[in-house]
């Protein structure tokens, strides 16, 4: 699966898509593949303030728990409720199965993260 060019990527394998001052956050295809069957996501409440680089929730596969790290700071304006019922959608469509929508404190903050090309190089080296 290709990594969308208009997303930015963290070293902890989250992606963020920024439009204006709104950011959508999910985990990468590489992350879902490493986790295996995803069975549970724990997300923050709407209205919560989250800080870049800090944990904002967890994602669980059958065999492991992983922390989710915020790619940027901001206020949670929406969470993807459908993932409570169908967490396996993250396995199927990691690029579109967003987890939280953020009102970004600083829309420029995500520019410092990796581009799609850099991220692909990063995971190739990690292997």
């Amino acid at each position, binding site marked *: 699966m290709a990594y969308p060019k208009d997303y930015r990527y963290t070293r902890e394998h989250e992606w963020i898509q920024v439009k204006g001052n709104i950011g959508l956050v999910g985990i990468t295809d590489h992350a879902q*593949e490493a986790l*295996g*069957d995803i*069975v*549970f996501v*724990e997300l923050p409440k709407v209205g919560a303030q989250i800080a870049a680089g800090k944990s904002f929730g*967890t994602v*669980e*596969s*059958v*065999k492991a*728990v992983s922390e989710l790290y915020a790619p940027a700071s901001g206020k949670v304006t929406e969470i993807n409720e459908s993932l409570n019922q169908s967490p396996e959608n993250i396995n199927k469509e990691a690029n579109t199965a967003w987890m939280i929508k953020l009102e970004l404190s600083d829309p420029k903050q995500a520019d410092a993260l990796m581009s799609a090309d850099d991220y692909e190089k990063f995971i190739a080296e990690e292997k």
Partner: protein
Amino acid sequence: MSSTAESQTLRKTALNALHRKLGAKMVDFGGWDMPVEYPSSGGLVKEHMTVRTGVGMFDVSHMGDILIRGPQALDAVQWISMNDASKLQEGQAHYSALLYPEGTFVDDVIVHKMSPNDYLLVINAGTREKDHSWVRKNVIRFHCHADDVGDYYTQIAIQGPKAEATLQKLTNVDLSQIKNYWFKHGTVCNLPNTMIARTGYTAEDGFEIYVPSDVPTSERVWNEVTEAGKEFGIAPCGLGARNTLRLEGKMALYGHEISDTINVWEADLGRYCKMEKSGFVGKEGLEKAKAAGVPRILVGLEAIDRGIPRDGYKVFNQHDHEIGYVTSGSPAPFLKKNIALAYVPPAHSELGHEVFVEIRGQKVKCKVVPTPFYKRPKKT
């Protein structure tokens, strides 16, 4: 390469290259480089369901094997293991355990009676060296040899309701004549005198075969089993599914439900421990432990609230007092529930009793449920 790097290298089974070719995700399991799941099979959940509904195959060559052989082999086995091996007939196996004098576990084992002078103990991968040296030390006063023969065999488990139909294509032995926990020798994949045991670690019907551990033979057998099971949708399965399958069946895992600090009574394995037979290592310790009272007991839990109890999580009572811990916990793919095994005081072990498992700071309500969580349907 330095010698230190060499000694840290993970051990590999004869099927290692084949697993990698199949694209398996590999993990370090007790010092062995083993497949945890095969994306080509659809991953852990699919593998688990395949074993419950069709047939799956596992490389379990990392398991250890100790052969106890000699005129006093039976006496030796009786002394070092808690079940009563004198009840075994030739071609029969049973679940047992090796114990420390306190009645805690060196390891759990399957004892196979090969002949009156020959007993094969199948032991865990992570405890192979420890078990072997413990066995050698404890059989020293008997006329017998205890040999580590683990490296001689590639052990393949074929498990699931279609296991018999799959394996039957590859052997001249009438598999319908092998009862659960019995074994026979016969030709498998043109290999004469191959051991076929109706055993496994999945709580499903199935077989384990022991073939020579050279790479070409091991790969040939693996491929022939794959081919034979194709019409039943056979899939290679990794240690991930092996763990969830055994958990649904409440089968103990060393280092989790049993260890050198947990005794037989606590682990609820008393039915495999024959106190009435003459002396064995651990008997006196267990008598004392019983007289002193059992402070904790293994129970099955099912999460009522949202949350997945996992290994090591703490268990609390309704007054927020810590009362125990989870030994194994996971989503159960077949049962579609979040289940766990946990040690709690007997006062909290009643069926239906509510306890709380702490998951990342939150107390998640669980209840004590009957075990095994899963029992395979009786054959019709």
